[in-house]
């Protein structure tokens, strides 16, 4: 466990502040909660410096599973151990779960209504566009650097999942070690 950052000019959140802070992130986090987490933690509350935030988030990002959810655990445990991780996670997930369960109930009653179906058809088309933009932003540094090997690895992952419909665990078990080994050999 990390010692609290006594050397850095940051403030220490209490458990209640952690919970309330992540409730705020969850409710404002539309289309990805990361920018809101950064705004709260670095800019408004000053619980971390920008560098500390990037470092903690890079860990959350490389771990499997939802990034922001991982981040809430990494961040919460840094300031409050296991209870800190639990309250940050509860704050992040509690309100969205309640809201989405409400939507699920509405959908189970009215999902067959043509108007709702048409609205969701429009939104899902836009949502795909947002996802494509995210992928493009992630891929751009690789493409700009002209690094052929990572681009090839990404392409193999795409073909395996999107075109060959292979199960995700198989693809990861083969592709991830190969990719990490290549990154080890040619840093």
């Amino acid at each position, binding site marked *: 466990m990390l010692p609290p950052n006594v050397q850095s000019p940051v403030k220490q959140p209490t458990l209640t502040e952690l919970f309330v802070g992540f409730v705020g992130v969850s409710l404002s986090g539309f289309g990805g909660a990361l920018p809101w987490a950064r705004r709260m933690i670095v800019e408004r509350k000053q619980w971390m410096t920008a560098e500390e935030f990037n470092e903690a988030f890079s860990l959350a990002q490389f771990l499997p599973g939802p990034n922001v959810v991982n981040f809430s655990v990494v961040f919460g445990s840094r300031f409050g151990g296991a209870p800190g991780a639990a309250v940050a996670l509860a704050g992040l997930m509690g309100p969205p779960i309640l809201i989405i369960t409400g939507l699920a109930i509405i959908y189970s009653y009215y999902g067959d209504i043509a108007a709702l179906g048409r609205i969701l058809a429009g939104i899902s088309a836009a949502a*795909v566009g947002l996802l494509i933009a995210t992928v493009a932003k992630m891929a751009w540094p690789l493409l700009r650097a002209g690094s052929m090997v990572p681009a090839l690895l990404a392409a193999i992952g795409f073909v395996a999942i999107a075109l060959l419909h292979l199960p995700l665990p198989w693809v990861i078990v083969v592709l991830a070690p190969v990719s990490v080994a290549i990154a080890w050999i040619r840093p």
Partner: protein
Amino acid sequence: MTPVLVTLAGHFALLSLFAIGGANAAIPEMHRLAVDVMHWMSDRQFADMFAMAQISPGPNVIIVTLIGYHVAGFAGALVATAAMIVPTCTLAFLVARVWDRFKGARWRKAIQGGLVPVSIGLMAASAFVVARAADQSWVAVAITIATAAIACFTRLNPLWAFAVAALIGLAGLL
């Protein structure tokens, strides 16, 4: 637990540990499971749930709550969500304790750098799979392209694109 809850728990717990790049990287596997293998829902319903998860506040991973509810009501929602979150959060908690000790270590950089192309490939596959479910007309394709362009090249809040797309859909133009 009923068999369907066990199935939900098992699949999502496994998925949680293989979703490199986040919840969106696991979308094709969720689609494969829910539509192709288990026949829990149609392509259209899957696209609807993806849309609902995107427009509701909070992490996009809550699409698993929707899938769980669709399959087995409240218990399904609870089980699917917990299964998707608990394994990876436990891992995050354990790794966070040692991670900073290895700052600058070569293997740490290799893991971080090596997983980037993998997650890009998975996310691209997600976009492809959802696009095939969602883009079933030329107008829908145009909405997708326009939203991607807005998100890439402008600082406009994508909520506006979603609102316009919803109106186009409601008007029956798709």
